[in-house]
């Protein structure tokens, strides 16, 4: 590979990362924010978001793309927190309790999600996205109508005045930052939520370890070639379901960590954007639909949130409107996802064309080709 080609591959692979670094660097001076403030914000947001983003890794390994269905786990976590608040369980004990409640729910939802995705192979992403909306309907039904009527809610202060259904905004005062505050390190003027980071580190260790297990190996095999894996006797569908279940459970825990840091819960739409932010972050970090690493997660959260911190103020200063910065960062968030998906799809097609080209030449084409042409488009078959 020539040096120039290497350079161009590097740029096309890390295009998103490079664009992001540049935009953020440009926006820092006009925002008027001090570097120290930005760093502290990034530390806080790393603790708040990393866990959620890490939940995306396994489905990518298993070849199921970006798991937009992780929102299901987030909903399970929220149900857990609602119960924790209802029973008045506070502090980190409340978080553990919420996790224990959310766990079986997220396993069940993950299983359902896996089943659905197995029925829509090749369309996992859009299916996960719609499934999240669908389950959202059921979540709304459960929280708005079941809680307080079918399932008694002891704590009347979280129930709507009509007697059932949970209030729009839930004050999580009893568990607010209880994980972060177990040990809050103060180093050089920065506050670092030590325990939160330890939990995140443990998850990273788990992911690394998991990749070394048989199941992890099977997941990689399934992710690369389902047909070959199936022929080798690996239970493909089961493996895919397990990947989604683990992702959903991690998303459940991640949402609990996220919300304890935020300190309150928008009961009916806190989960709306969970998948979007996580996916945008991992893509900004240089991951693609098929490749992702732990490094992508942390790089992505750092970059995405650095921009999120900076852009509204920069927009205010540059255009005289905070809304412009606000819209700009959303434009960038959605745009990043769109561009990454486009680049990925485009690259896959190019690779397929190149592979075809390499068939010609000295050796024979492989296979007892049945002459099924790979031309034209598969459309949305």
């Amino acid at each position, binding site marked *: 590979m020539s040096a120039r080609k290497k350079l161009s591959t590097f740029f096309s692979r890390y295009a998103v990362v490079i664009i992001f670094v540049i935009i953020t660097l440009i926006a820092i001076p006009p925002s008027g924010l001090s570097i120290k403030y930005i760093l502290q914000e990034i530390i806080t947001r790393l603790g708040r978001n990393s866990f959620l983003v890490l939940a995306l890794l396994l489905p990518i390994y298993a070849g199921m793309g970006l798991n937009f269905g992780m929102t299901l786990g987030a909903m399970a976590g929220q149900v857990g927190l609602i119960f924790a608040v209802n029973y008045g369980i506070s502090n980190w004990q409340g978080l553990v309790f919420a996790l224990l409640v959310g766990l079986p729910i997220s396993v069940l939802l993950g299983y359902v999600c896996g089943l659905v995705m197995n029925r829509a192979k090749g369309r996992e992403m859009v299916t996960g996205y719609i499934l999240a909306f669908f389950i959202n309907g059921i979540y709304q039904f459960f929280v708005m109508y079941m809680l307080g009527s079918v399932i008694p809610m002891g704590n009347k202060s979280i129930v709507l005045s009509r007697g059932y259904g949970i209030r729009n905004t839930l004050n999580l005062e009893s568990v607010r930052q209880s994980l972060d505050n177990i040990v809050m390190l103060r180093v050089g003027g920065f506050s670092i939520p030590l325990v939160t980071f330890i939990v995140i580190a443990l998850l990273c260790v788990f992911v690394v*370890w998991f990749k070394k297990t048989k199941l992890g190996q099977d997941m990689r095999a399934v992710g690369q070639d389902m047909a070959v894996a199936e022929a080798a006797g690996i239970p493909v569908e089961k493996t895919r379901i397990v990947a989604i279940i683990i992702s959903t459970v991690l998303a459940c825990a991640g949402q609990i960590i996220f919300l304890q840091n935020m300190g309150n819960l928008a009961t009916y739409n806190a989960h709306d954007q969970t998948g979007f932010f996580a996916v945008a972050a991992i893509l900004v970090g240089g991951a693609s639909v098929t490749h992702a690493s732990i490094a992508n997660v942390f790089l992505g959260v750092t970059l995405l949130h650095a921009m999120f911190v900076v852009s509204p103020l920069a927009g205010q200063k540059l255009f005289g409107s905070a809304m412009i910065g606000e819209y700009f960062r959303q434009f960038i968030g959605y745009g990043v996802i769109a561009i990454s998906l486009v680049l990925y799809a485009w690259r896959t097609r190019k690779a397929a064309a190149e592979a075809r080209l390499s068939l010609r030449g000295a050796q024979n084409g492989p296979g007892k*080709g049945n002459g099924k042409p790979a031309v034209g488009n598969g459309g949305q078959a």
Partner: protein
Amino acid sequence: MANGSSLLSIEHVSKDFYGNVVLHDVSFDLHEGEILGLVGENGAGKTTLMHILFGMPVIMETGGFQGSIKIGGTEVHFSSPFDALDAGLGMVHQEFSLIPGFTTTENIVLNRESMRASILNDVFGDRMSVLQRDRMRERAQKAIGKLGVDLNPDMLVSEMPVGHKQFTEIAREIDREQTRILILDEPTAVLTESEAEMLLQTLKRLASEGIAIIFISHRLQEVLAIANRIVVLRDGHAVKDTPNENISMRDIASWMVGRSLGESGQRSEARGFAESLFKVRHLWVDMPGETVRDVSFDVHRGEIFGIGGLAGQGKLGIPNGIMGLFPAGGEVVLDGKTVPLNDPAKALAMGMAFVSEDRRGVGLLLDESLEWNIAFTAIQVHGQYLKKIFGLFSQRDEKAMEDLCAEYVKLLDIKCTSTKQKAKELSGGNQQKVCLAKAFAIKPQLMFVSEPTRGIDVGAKKLVLDTLHHYNRDFGTTIVMVSSELEELRSICDRIAIVDEGRIAGILPPTADISEFGLLMSGAAMEEAVNA
């Protein structure tokens, strides 16, 4: 060579698919350390035999088979390929079954990795065991060592040369401790000459270690080079089972394709053609699995020109490339005018038509009516079957389409409930007729027909061939017919070209001796055949 008792015995195996007999009372034995060369044309029953041997679900789904299979003297019944693997059978398929992003090691031990139980096994099951990479590597190296080739255990499959992939596949079967019988289906098809040579050495080496090998190949010289015994399948019969002694390639070739003389039905009367209509020079086509490398030929006006050859050799690539369906290059001239390649619309507009071998994939709009299927190309290419309304919009002329369709339904005797019936509801033979009708409807000067009888029953086959024959005679349409069935080509073609490895191996009259065809297909003795 055959020492000891037989390791694998196939006894009186017969199999039919819904009355269509594919295997008829096939028996042979395989002994320890023996290499058995299994040869036969496409459709001779090799694949079905392997399916039976491996307990493929498709066999059970279609009613099982008669006869028995014994391994080491005891009868076995496999309900899935995994049973066969457990019983000591190993198979290397023509298509690679490797994970591209895995290393040689990971592929060799795929799903049989060495593992150490972890504490989580008791909670979440065995798959939580941790892989022992060093053990896996050792095993891979051992298997590679047995092959006697130089393979890097840490190389990614996606970065390997093709030959190494093939060896990785074999190493995977060798790593299975119980593997005693190894079946290779066209293992040299994708290899370069030197790689193929190395593979043959490896197989001999494995045989000397006591592994029995069934070697399926169309390259007869390879079979002659390594087989201890040769079994020839033809039309489901094991026509020959002979030790590899004093056999020539020509012998095998004639056993493979030979039919008793009386059997081969009518031959086209010899016709003379003066004028050349169609010229192909140095055509290459980039069609996966059917690559065409360098093909040149001429077709005379009014002739039926046959193109034969074994599957995967590139015969299908020729019409697909000329009609612009796959990237192609070279020079193609029709009636003095150069045909632009890679542009189906132009090719069609110049008066060529194509009946694809992939009937359901390319040939038909399965979800649309027969009217659509037959008239569509004519609408798009020649703007026919359209009418203007308000003098502005051109609309489909449903009436004209129906008339057209009805005409062909009658002409070709297409069995359907109405011209509005959906194409997917017809039988294979009738679908094929629809495809032909679609091509006829644009009144072509030159028509390519690819595998016109694939997958349809005997009666329909005859009808389709008769249709082509009559169309050629009545309208003078020049036809280029591509088929894997030599007999079919010989029955209606005026000349037959045989394609081998992406090149024309030779062009023969239909009356040529059957062994000549066999030799051409086996990629041997090109000059010998050309003289014939």
